[in-house]
C-alpha cells in the first residue's frame, strides 16, 4: 500500500479533509494512456472543452484563446507539449483552468481522473529514463502500485509557451 490517498478513500468531503503538514494534493488527468497531475492549489476550475479562437504568431502549443466570464485566456495543448501530436478535441475533453502568478491559463487534457493526497516524502524525482524535452516539463513522479503519475512543472510549461510566442 503506497502513501497515496485517493479521493474515494478519503471519503465524500475530500476538499474539507484535513491536510497534514507534509501532504500535497494533486489533480490527476490523462493524455492517452498516460497519467499526469498538477498541484491542486493551482487549479481554479475544470471545464469541458469549447472551441478556441486562434491566435496568429503564437507558439504551436497554444491552440488559441477562450472567453471565461469576460477574461481572455490561452489554451495550451498538453498532448502537443509532450510531443504526442495535436489533440483532436471534442466536448468530452477537459480544460483545467490554472492560475500561475496571477494569470489564468487553460490546459487541454483528455479527462480528469482523480484527486490524490500525497506525503511529500513519497514524491520521487523524475528518472533519466524519461527522455527528451518531456523531462524538462516534469517536476516529479508519483508511484502507486504499478501506476506512474508524472507531476507537471506548470511554471516551465507556461514559460515555454510564452517564450515560443515571443520568438514567433
Amino acid at each position: 500500500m503506497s502513501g497515496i490517498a485517493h479521493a474515494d478513500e478519503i471519503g465524500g468531503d475530500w476538499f474539507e479533509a484535513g491536510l497534514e503538514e507534509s501532504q500535497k494534493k494533486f489533480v490527476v488527468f490523462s493524455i492517452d494512456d498516460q497519467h499526469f497531475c498538477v498541484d491542486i492549489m493551482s487549479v481554479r476550475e475544470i471545464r469541458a472543452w469549447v472551441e478556441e479562437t486562434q491566435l496568429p504568431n503564437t507558439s504551436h502549443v497554444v491552440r488559441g484563446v477562450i472567453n471565461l466570464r469576460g477574461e481572455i485566456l490561452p489554451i495550451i495543448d498538453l498532448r502537443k507539449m509532450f510531443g504526442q501530436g495535436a489533440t483532436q478535441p471534442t466536448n468530452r475533453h477537459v480544460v483545467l483552468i490554472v492560475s500561475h502568478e496571477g494569470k489564468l491559463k487553460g490546459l487541454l487534457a483528455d479527462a480528469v481522473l482523480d484527486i490524490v493526497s500525497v506525503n511529500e516524502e513519497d514524491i520521487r524525482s523524475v528518472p533519466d529514463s524519461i527522455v527528451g524535452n518531456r523531462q524538462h516539463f516534469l517536476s516529479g513522479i508519483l508511484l502507486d502500485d504499478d501506476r506512474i503519475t508524472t507531476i507537471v512543472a506548470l511554471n516551465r510549461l507556461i514559460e515555454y509557451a510564452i517564450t515560443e510566442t515571443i520568438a514567433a
Partner: protein
Amino acid sequence: MIDYEAIKPTYFSECADLLTDLDTHFSDFSEIDKAPDAALGAYRKIHSIKGSSGVFDFKRVITVAHEIETLLQGTISKEPGELAALAATFLRARDILSDLIAAEQTGEQLPGAYEQPVLEELRQFVSAQANERTGQDSDIPKDQKPEDADPQPLLDDVVGGRAFVNSTIRVERDRIDNLINQVSEIIISQSSVMRHVDEALHQSHPELAQAISHYFRQSVSLQDAVMAIRAQPIGTVFASLPRLVRELAAQSGKSVRITFSGENTEIDQTVVQRLYGPLTHMIRNAVDHGLELPVDREAAGKHKTGEIVVAAAQQGECLRIVVSDDGRGLDAEKIRQTAIKRDLITETDKLSTEEINGLIFKSGFSTAGRISDISGRGIGMDIILQDIHNLGGRILVNSSPGNGCEMELILPLSFAVIEGMVVDIAGQTCVLPLSAIRQCVSGAAAHMRRVPDLGAFLQLNDQLIRFADLHRLLQNRADNDSGLPSQTDSEVDLALLVETHEGASLAIKIDRFLGQQQIVVKSIEENFTRIDGISGATVLGDGEIALILDVSSIYELLGGKIAGETSLGEHVETAA
C-alpha cells in the same frame, strides 16, 4: 471607540495627496508671483499632516512636520526672494517626511538619525528667523509644541467618514474597476440586442423597437458617466514636472522655465499613470539636449532662460499633448549623418525633413556628444515611442535648427472602449479600430499593382500603398495547417485603407464588412503575452471572440518602411 486600523488607509492616501501638493507648493517658491500663495497653501497642508499624524502618534513624522510648519510660519510674511532661497530646504524636508510616512505604512525601520540632517537645517533657519524677529505677532496661531496641535477636527472628519476638505469622495480602485467591467458587459449584451432591432421589428413591434432604442441610448449615457468617474485632470501628471525641471536645470547649469496649459483636460485613469514615463523622458531630453547653456542662448539672441511649454487639449476623440522647447532644435543634417553611421539608412536614401527627424525614434540612435547621466545614451526616444504606441497613440515631431523642437503626442482618450469596424478576413472575424481607418475601397482589383521583389500595392491617386493579404501574414509559426485558411488568388474586391501610428498607409484586404460598433477591449496580455499584429480581443454579442488588429504592428511585420518606397513609380507593372 475609534478603530484606528480602519482609518489608517485613509490617512495614508490623504497624506499622499498632501505630500504631492506640498511638492508643487515648495517648487512654486521659486516663482515670484506664485510664492506667497504657495507658502500659505503649504502651511495649511503641513498643518493637516501634522494634525492627523498626531492621531496615530507617529512621533518622527510629527517632529519633522512640526519643524517644517514652524519655519513656514516664519516665512509666510517674507519677501518672495527669501522664499525662493528656502525652496530647496523645504523640498528636502518634504522628501524626508514622505519617507517617514511611507515607513509607517510599510513597517520599515529607518535609521534613527535619518531625519537629523534635515531637522538641523530647518532648526538653523528657524533660529535665524527668531533672532531677526522683534516680537511681532503673526496672524497664524502658533504651535510651539507638537502636543499642542489639535487633531480633533481632523479626526471628526475621518471618523465620521466624511470627505476631507472639498466635495470629493474616496472609493477603492477595485470597486471602480468592477463597476467599469459590469458596464462593459452591458455594452456587449446591448450590441447583441441591437442586432435584432431592424426594420422588420419596427414594423411588427413598433413600441418594443422604440423602447429598446430608448434603453440603448440610456445605456450609452450610463457608460459615459461611468467612464467619467475614472477621468482625472491631466494636471496630476504635470504636478511633479516643475521640480524635475529645477533639478535637471541645476545639474546641467542651464536656466529653464516650464509652463503648462490645459491642466484641467480630463483623461482616463489608466492613461494617467502611463503618461508619466514618456513625459518625463521628453522633458529630460528637452533640458539635456534641446536647450542650450545660458551663454550660448544669449549669443544666439535668445533670453538666457530656456522655456518648455506643455499644452494639453482634447481634440475630438483624441488627447493632444504638445511638449515644445525653444532650444537649438533638431539638426536634420546631423541626424542624417548619424543615421548613416548607425546603419539605419544609406547615403542614397531620399528622406523628407519629417522623415529624418523621425529617425531619432529608432533604437540605437543618439546625437549626444557624450554620455550624460541625465538621459543616458541612445535609449530615450525609442522607449518614449514604445510607451506611446502601447497607449495606442503616436508622436509627431516638428523642428528646425535654432528654432526649438515641438513634439506632439496624440492619444486616444480611452483605450478600454473604442469604436471599431468588425470585418471578415478569410473567414475569421476581426476588428479594426475606427480611428485607424482612412478609407474604404471597393473594386480594388482594378488598382492592384505588383512590384518585383516588393510585393503587391494599391495605386490610388498617384500613391502606391502597400497591400496586406492578412491570411498569409497572420499564421501560426510552426503550424501551417492552423491559422487563417489561405486563399487561392481570388479577385480582390474590398480593401480598407488604414494608417499606422507613424502615419504610414496600408491597404488591408477584407472579405466582408460586418458592421461598426463599440468595442470593449479585452487584454490578451493580461493572461498570456503580447501577440504580434494583435492589440487585444473583444467578445462580440454572440459570445464569439474577435481579434483586434494592430495596424502598426502589422506594418512592422510586413517589413516596415522600405527605403526608397516613394520612388517606386519607376518599377510599377500592371497586375497580370
